[in-house]
């Protein structure tokens, strides 16, 4: 596999061994998002604890390796961070994904999620990568209200 590949080992790892997969209790909000273009779907729950710290992000869904791995990476990155911190990661991830491969990823902020940089060149795949992240953003907003 070539260097530029979209299929970084890390993505395949997360796809084959998803972190935190499965829906768990307790949770503050649950959302269900679908990508109508390709049929990928995700159900995602958020539990926010004291001081606005994420206690758990649990999820289930189906779709391609990109959408599944993105959910797994999301689970890892959010664990233990404050809502605010995670939302800035979501923003940076969104910026990277919508940058058509022209945007430099900020590894400081994104951590493992930089592995998705190659996806940004394929508009049709961007939504796969963003599905769980958008669901997460939605769930966080709902949990606050």
């Amino acid at each position: 596999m070539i260097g530029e590949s979209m299929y970084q080992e890390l993505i395949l790892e997360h796809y084959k061994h998803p972190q935190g997969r499965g829906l768990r209790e307790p949770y503050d909000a649950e959302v269900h998002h679908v990508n109508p273009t390709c049929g990928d779907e995700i159900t995602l729950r958020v539990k926010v604890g004291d001081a606005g710290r994420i206690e758990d992000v649990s999820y289930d869904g189906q779709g391609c390796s990109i959408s599944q791995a993105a959910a797994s990476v999301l689970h890892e990155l959010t664990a233990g961070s404050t809502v605010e911190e995670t939302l800035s990661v979501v923003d940076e991830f969104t910026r990277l994904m919508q940058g058509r491969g022209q945007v430099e990823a900020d590894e400081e902020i994104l951590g493992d999620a930089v592995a998705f940089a190659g996806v940004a060149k394929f508009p049709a795949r961007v939504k796969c990568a963003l599905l769980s992240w958008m669901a997460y953003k939605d769930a966080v907003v709902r949990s606050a209200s």
Partner: protein
Amino acid sequence: MTHPTSLDVERIRKDFPVLSRELPGGRPLIYLDSGNSSQKPTPVVETVREHLAMHYSNVGRAMHALGAESTEAYESARDKVAAFIGAPSRDEVIFTKNASEALNLVAHAFGPHLWGSSGEGTDPRFALGPGDEIVISEMEHHSNIVPWQLLVQRTGATLKWFGVTDEGRLDLSTLDELVTERTKIVSIAHQSNVLGTVNPVADVLRRAREVGALVMLDASQSVPHHPVDVAGLGVDFVAFTGHKMLGPSGIGVLWGRGELLEAMPPFLGGGEMIEAVWMDHSTYAPIPHKFEAGTPPIVEAIGLGAAVDYLQGIGMDAVEAHERELTAYALEALREVPTLRLIGPETLDRRGATLSFTLEGIHPHDVGQILDDSFGIAVRVGHHCARPLHLRFGIPATTRASFYLYNTTGEIDALVRGLHHVQKVFA
């Protein structure tokens, strides 16, 4: 008689410089996505370049040397396309920007129009309102679905459709209930862009004629790959697109029976489609110009003319025969890939060189991207702008390999090797 398969694929490949290109990372290119859009041979590219650089000017309206050169080249392209599809008259060939515009153009001819001020009432064949029906099929490309959905939303008419059988054929068992006295037009694909199925035009046409309905063919996937004779087919409208038949992007074709095109109201308004304009009304140019508002895709039409020349130089019979050989080979070769499920006819009977399939447990997005990443194999993955057809088969997406005159059995072997590799990666 020459043998119809006498197509020298190695010589042909030399005309397509991109086929010897090295992709980033040193991958070769194995292009199996011509159903999406085809590559362009050097004569087409050079015709475009030469015209843009040395002969360009606006057409029709310009009265100088360059104007005459450009107009002559543009109108010659119309002659070429007309001859290529057996159009009874060159004036029946309308240049659009793609097949989608051609389909929308016909859809927009229907309605309760008020063309009174230009002296024309709505021809009864195009009068459409509540109670009237339009028939399409479940295997259509979105470009032959959405224009009709928008039309029934505008007019209150009803949209109906043929189902698709498990083998990927048009389900004609309901033909007589579906196509009735209420039907104004039946619009179906000549060849499916997913299944490869070639539809039985004559059967549908016979019923449509019985009830007085018009018939349109979306020939986007047939005109590039088979000899097509619109007069012989006997239908009313045919739409296709230049970029799938070795031509440039930005050019499509609507062929229609002259008498119908003349009866239709104009679609886009603007320069070139008029006869005379006053502030409060206008009269329109005769066909084909009536439907070509504004500066047309000049160089694109000329490039399409060069593509038609190229295809005719090889012979559409030879193109068809070559693709048939590739299809036979691929149907056989794909059988050995474990868990592969073909969506569409499994035999050579009435089918073209488009093969869509699924691999158990592996999302087509992943199949396509690994094929590309690892081997430079370009296939299309997703619903191929035919989501209802995929819903029909209960799958969100397929992987599609589609062949053209420049493809080889060696490339099909590479695809099979690639699919084995994909299965290893996701094992």
